């Protein structure tokens, strides 16, 4: 099968899986359904909390996978001191914030679970950048750190307020952050720093400089050092040009703890890649160790390129009285040149073709 006959999402999925396998990630195939219990306990880990359920023949409540990571984590058994590296390409079913109803979304990604170190994390980030570059030349990879954000918010004891601040950080809404801090009795100094953090966006070197000035808490400094080390690895791989630091990409702290990242392509209104470090999810599921991974959402890719200009290369028109065997054989002969041929007795409405061939004129004459 030639690559051109694949849809953009299928083609991208194929190339991404090849890429991940080059890095020694093992393909992971899972069933379409999982017991509903798996998701109900971790609903806020999911991108959307709505889950498509049905009752299986044995009466158990099942769900069509809204997410892949939970299934992989459930079954992960990384050998001590080593890593489990898996990649997947699966359909997931969930609602999107903007649209109504459930959608089937093709998702390709990888997970790296076990005793993580800098090298493994750097590799995952590099793979995220490579994945994006396969999808579009002018991609951007945004990198943030949950540890840094949560260290800054640690002194805020009111959990509701912390949640609201995190949400406003996600909207880069500095006026609202100031207002929440004032209402919640948070010191002016921290309010200013949170506001500055929300406003930060840009290439790693300049943002890292600003962060140096911005973070003081020891936990936040540790996170900053980790960010610096990762940026160092990406710089070494010459991937720094497309990297931006951004702390508005915060996620649920109950699941995510370390670096967190998102990938964007020009022309697509929302992100195509999302990932991060989720040790806390592992702990919640009763597993030791650390984990990092990302997913690429392929459902938007068909917006990137124009669909084929033509539905078929040749439209072959024949008449009812033509000998069927001759018509079929002639079409087959035309196809041998590598072109696609559609046989019809009359021109279908709206069909786009490069060339029109009448069987009884040029075609049949040559053929007979």
């Amino acid at each position, binding site marked *: 099968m030639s690559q051109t006959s694949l849809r953009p999402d299928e083609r991208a999925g194929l190339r991404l899986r090849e890429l991940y396998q080059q890095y020694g990630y093992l393909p992971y195939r899972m069933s379409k359904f999982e017991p509903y219990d798996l998701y109900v306990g971790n609903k806020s880990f999911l991108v959307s909390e709505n889950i498509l359920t049905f009752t299986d023949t044995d009466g158990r409540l099942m769900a069509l996978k809204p997410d892949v990571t939970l299934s992989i984590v459930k079954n992960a058994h990384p050998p001590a001191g080593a890593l489990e590296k898996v990649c997947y390409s699966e359909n997931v079913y969930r609602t999107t914030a903007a649209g109504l109803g459930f959608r089937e979304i093709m998702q390709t990604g990888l997970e790296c679970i076990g005793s993580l170190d800098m090298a493994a994390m750097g590799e995952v980030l590099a793979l995220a950048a490579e994945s994006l570059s396969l999808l579009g030349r002018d991609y951007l990879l945004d990198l943030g750190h949950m540890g840094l954000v949560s260290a800054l918010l640690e002194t805020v004891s009111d959990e509701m307020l912390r949640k609201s601040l995190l949400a406003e950080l996600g909207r880069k*809404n500095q006026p609202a952050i100031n207002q929440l801090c004032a209402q919640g009795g948070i010191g002016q100094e921290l309010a200013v720093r949170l506001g500055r953090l929300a406003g930060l966006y840009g290439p790693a070197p300049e943002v890292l400089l600003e962060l140096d000035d911005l973070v003081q808490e020891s936990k936040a400094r540790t996170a900053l050092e980790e960010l610096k080390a990762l940026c160092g690895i990406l710089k070494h791989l010459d991937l720094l040009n497309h990297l931006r630091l951004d702390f508005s990409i915060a996620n649920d702290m109950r699941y995510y703890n370390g670096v967190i990242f998102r990938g*964007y392509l020009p022309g697509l209104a929302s*992100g195509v890649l999302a990932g991060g470090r989720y040790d806390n999810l592992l702990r919640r599921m009763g597993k030791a160790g650390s984990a990092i991974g990302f997913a690429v959402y392929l459902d938007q890719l068909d917006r990137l390129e124009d669909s084929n200009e033509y539905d078929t290369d040749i439209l072959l028109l024949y008449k009812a009285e033509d000998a069927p065997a001759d018509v079929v054989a002639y079409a087959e002969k035309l196809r041998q040149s590598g072109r696609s041929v559609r046989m019809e007795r009359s021109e279908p409405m709206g069909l786009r073709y490069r060339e029109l061939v009448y069987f009884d004129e040029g075609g049949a004459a040559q053929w007979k």
Partner: protein
Amino acid sequence: MEMISVALPKGRLGEKVYAQFKAAGYPCPSIEEENRKLIFENPEAGIRYFWVKPSDVAIYVERGAADIGVAGKDILLEYNPDVYELADLGLGKCRMCVAAKRDFREQADRVLRVATKFPHIAGRYYASLSRDIDIIHLNGSIEIAPILGLSDVIVDIVETGKTLLENNLEPKATIVPISARLIANKVGYKFKHTKIGELCCRMEELSQKGQACHD
């Protein structure tokens, strides 16, 4: 040259917002002419404007048809779009209120009937008070609902309170203050960061100046 497209809310607020864009250095002569065009461009300033229904601004921005836009906080609270909220422009100031007939006395043992254009805002507000309510979603002329006995109270935007007064209604509680916000598409913000950042700075400066004049 890279263009920034701006979704402006049709109407009085939109005119004020455009005036602020113009003052910030993003004029567009064609928008000031009387014509039937839908989209207005000024390539020199690198800006493209279009008018849309105020409640649709957030949708155009969220889906990336506009890089930035101006929407009332009421719309943002009601639809909760996934966008960046970059600045409070200080224009179109009003408040989201609960209003009722002047002689209305709330009976706590009954389900409160609330007529509103903003079911989510109303729902969240009363949920925070643990009050059982029946939401009646209307699309306009909300003030008539309590007069005709359709609802006990209304949740709506109050600017001067004049309409309420003329209809023998009055605001009973303020839910949240409202003003126009500069919003940006999350992806557009990243790819056009320098230009949008600069625009945001200039607009903020102007609204702070405006604020100082009013105070």
